[in-house]
């Protein structure tokens, strides 16, 4: 076996590592665009799924533009921080697109006592307006996510998606299944006074109860996580919901950037808006 000097070994490893580093950086840089596009497409697919529209990755961007009107970020005091117009791709107010907001960062900001910017997606489907609220919390093993699509009364759930990072297959992971998600549809997140009451995920839930759905048997910790997530994340929007719902009756105040005229018109036309 050949003898290698220490000097040779050092130079050899340094050169090898440098070559590998350059190679990997070049590849990572050149593929980044495609990878980011994939992540964005997936997010759009999930948002579309929340409003019960199925789209594959290729159509996601197009369909997203078709169904969604605005992306807002709102503060917990109800004020609108930014408005992004999905149809023409322009920022109408503020500078941060709700789509690019990392919910976890905002939750951390809020925890640190600062103001967070929380996303709301405004969509219209079959002539009706609606809102999607994304949420994020902790299950048993890792993060759990959901998107709650609400009807124009900002109260009735018309669709949900749940996903998770690493819940137990067959138990907690069932939240990602239709069987768990279907019962959410038609439930209401507000009580009769317009206060956010969220949806309780619990054992032996009354199928006719407006604010509860059945938990997963054997997945208690995950169910509790979902419970806490929904309660905390929906409650953040209380003031914004109040304001939007107030706009439904009082011809829209200028304070809020949600185009309330459309809703008000529908209301005048006698469409039922349950308040």
């Amino acid at each position: 076996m050949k003898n290698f000097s220490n000097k040779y070994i050092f130079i050899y490893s340094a050169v090898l590592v440098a070559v590998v580093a350059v190679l990997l950086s070049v590849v990572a840089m050149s593929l980044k665009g495609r990878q980011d596009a994939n992540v964005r497409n997936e997010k759009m697919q999930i948002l579309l799924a929340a409003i019960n529209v199925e789209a594959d990755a290729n159509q996601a961007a197009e369909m997203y533009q078709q169904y969604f009107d605005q992306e807002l970020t709102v503060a917990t005091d109800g004020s609108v921080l930014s408005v992004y117009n999905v149809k023409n791709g322009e920022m109408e107010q503020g500078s941060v697109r709700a789509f690019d907001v990392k919910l976890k960062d905002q939750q951390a900001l809020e925890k640190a006592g600062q103001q967070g910017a929380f996303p709301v997606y405004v969509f219209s489907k079959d002539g009706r307006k609606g809102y999607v609220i994304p949420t994020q919390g902790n299950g048993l093993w890792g993060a759990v996510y959901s998107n709650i699509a609400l009807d124009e009364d900002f109260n009735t759930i018309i669709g949900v998606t749940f996903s998770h990072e690493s819940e137990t297959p067959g138990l907690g992971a069932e939240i990602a299944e239709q069987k768990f998600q279907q019962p959410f549809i038609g439930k209401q997140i507000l009580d009769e006074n317009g206060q956010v009451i969220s949806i309780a995920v619990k054992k032996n839930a009354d199928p006719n109860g407006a604010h509860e759905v059945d938990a997963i048997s054997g997945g208690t910790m995950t169910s509790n996580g979902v419970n806490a997530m929904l309660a905390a994340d929906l409650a953040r929007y209380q003031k914004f919901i109040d304001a939007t719902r107030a706009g439904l009756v009082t011809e829209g105040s200028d304070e809020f950037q949600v185009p309330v005229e459309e809703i008000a018109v529908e209301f005048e036309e006698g469409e039922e808006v349950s308040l």
Partner: protein
Amino acid sequence: MKIFTDPLAKNNPITVQVLGICSCLAVTAQLKPALVMAISVTVVVALSNLIISLMRNTIPPRIRIIVQLVVVSALVILVNQVLMAFVYDVSKQLSVYVGLIITNCIVMGRLEAFAMSRKPLESFLDGVGNGLGYGIILVIIGAFREIFGSGSIWGYPIMEKLGLYQIGYENNGLVIMAPMALILVGIIIWIQRTKDKDLQEN
């Protein structure tokens, strides 16, 4: 030629060398991720074998494992980046298991046992052979588990089209779970050793 065909059966990495079992259990619930994983491992083993074989005379023995690891890691990261860019949904299903190809014993095993002392072409063939030997088992198990666990093949709902659900057929939940993959590997080993007396140990 023997270099290429041996790992497919007589010296199969999974059923005879019993390497790479972990990923074999994890990614075979469906056929598609199983096949992508098989291709990824084949690419990594073949190329790392080739590269290490080309470099073998320049590698100082004292740091050879580190050099091997650097080469393998670089290739695995490349594969992962390519998967994320072009087959995003599959790369999500494979999740950490692509990264774990680095620690797949087949790769390091072939480098140490073969590529360090053989010519590039031989090493490359050995790598392809071992990758395919691993891949065959993965695909067999993946196909079985998808058909009997999810009632579909490559995402095509075959059981539904055959109308088996109407006559009371149900998918077997156990087949989707990891233990079933282990049982299947066991059955394959059993069949192989029954047929090939050379492999039987006393």
